[in-house]
């Protein structure tokens, strides 16, 4: 191997174990210096790209897998209990249930819009952005999964650890779902609670807290935007009672570990 061939290989694979390459580097001090320089550039480049992985990412990777496995198990149970023929028969029932939910939503939305509630309808742009982000996401995600409380709480705490290390959530026995989701221009914790008045969605979005708490009728929902430490809590319910129940529960459950 001559010097030109050596330098070519040094640039392609500076750690090559090729016999001729190793021998030439021993025999030729200039080439040895050359390959050392290439290796140094590689090491410096590698160091310049060093980053530490978020401490909870491994836990999240494992949690995702456990959830996927649980979901697959539930699907198997469902398939086994219904049988393949019954699944087809089950579909129309689901459609009726969805239609009934939509009708109920329209009724409640109309009721709210008729001015039965004395909510503040003059929403500022900060509030509007938060509410529209949450509603946009809710509309995008037409179906919200319903998990058991243990799974939902475990997920919420794992996700919160990476999203906001200080905010914690005590165990909520009626928590049904939790995930970090994009919500309009924001990204936050999206979760749902089962209340006596149906499912209530809430979102915790990190950032500058809005000035004051605001209750508003928004897109058919009874909503609350509440400033909390380090962000805002947005609660969306179909009824005032559901909103209040969720609010009371979250007030007890949310705390900051600082």
């Amino acid at each position, binding site marked *: 191997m001559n010097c030109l061939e050596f330098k070519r290989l040094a640039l392609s*694979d500076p750690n090559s174990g090729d016999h001729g390459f190793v021998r030439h580097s021993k025999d030729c001090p200039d080439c040895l210096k050359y390959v050392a320089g290439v290796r140094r550039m590689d090491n*410096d*480049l590698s160091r310049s790209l*060093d*980053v530490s992985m978020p401490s909870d*990412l491994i836990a999240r990777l494992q949690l995702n*897998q456990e959830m996927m496995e649980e979901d697959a198990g539930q699907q198997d149970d469902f398939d086994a209990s219904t049988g393949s023929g019954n699944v087809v028969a089950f579909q129309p029932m689901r459609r009726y249930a969805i239609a009934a939910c939509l009708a109920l939503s329209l009724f409640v939305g109309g009721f709210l819009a008729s001015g039965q509630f004395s909510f503040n309808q003059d929403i500022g742009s900060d509030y509007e952005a938060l509410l529209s982000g949450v509603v946009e996401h809710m509309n995008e995600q037409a179906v919200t999964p319903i998990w058991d409380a243990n799974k939902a709480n475990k997920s919420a705490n794992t996700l919160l650890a990476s999203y906001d290390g200080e905010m914690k959530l005590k165990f909520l026995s009626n928590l049904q779902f939790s995930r970090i989701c994009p919500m309009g221009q924001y990204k936050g914790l999206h979760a749902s609670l089962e209340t006596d008045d149906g499912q209530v969605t809430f979102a915790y979005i990190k950032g500058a807290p809005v000035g004051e708490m605001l209750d508003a009728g928004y897109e058919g929902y009874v909503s609350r935007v509440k400033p909390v430490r380090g962000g805002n809590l947005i609660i969306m319910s179909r009824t005032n009672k559901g909103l209040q129940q969720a609010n009371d529960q979250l007030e007890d459950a949310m705390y900051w570990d600082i």
Partner: protein
Amino acid sequence: MTDSSNENDQGQVNYDIMDKKRKYALLIEAHSQDLYKYALWLCKDKNMAEDVMQEAFLRAWKSLDSLREAKAAKGWLFTIFRREHARQFERKQFQYQDVEEMDTLADATMGYDDRPEAFALRNALKRLPQDYREPLEMQVLGGFSCDEIATILDISSSAVMTRLFRARKKMRQILGHESAPQLGVVGD
């Protein structure tokens, strides 16, 4: 099942007889840090890197039964990641361009070394044509051999060697050093 029962005579982990969960845990433990480093560099955004990585690991879990050899695990995982990244990239290309424009700021917030010489090296890598940059990223960030890179990129080994040669040559030109650049003098 203990760790030792999963190893053959050469001390090589035998994935073939291993429980799927254990295999997955080992995969995470052994490769998540390298993959995260690669993911962040490719995505240029922490949230997106984490999202793509989580999605890639879920896909890996789904097809974990097809992974037989531990030594092939890293290449296999990086291939899954690259495909997932390509899928996400198609969807989120617009946001990507936004992020690219504010790279100096982004580098610091992503946790990279903020010294000017480190920035110059990253910048030189960024400026390489993609065909040259990809194999170099794999060799430097992933520690892959030329043959492994050839398999991942689905090109010949000699093509990988040529691209690596041109990538390093170009890096040196960009950095303005005839001799190899040294950390501490780049950008002085």
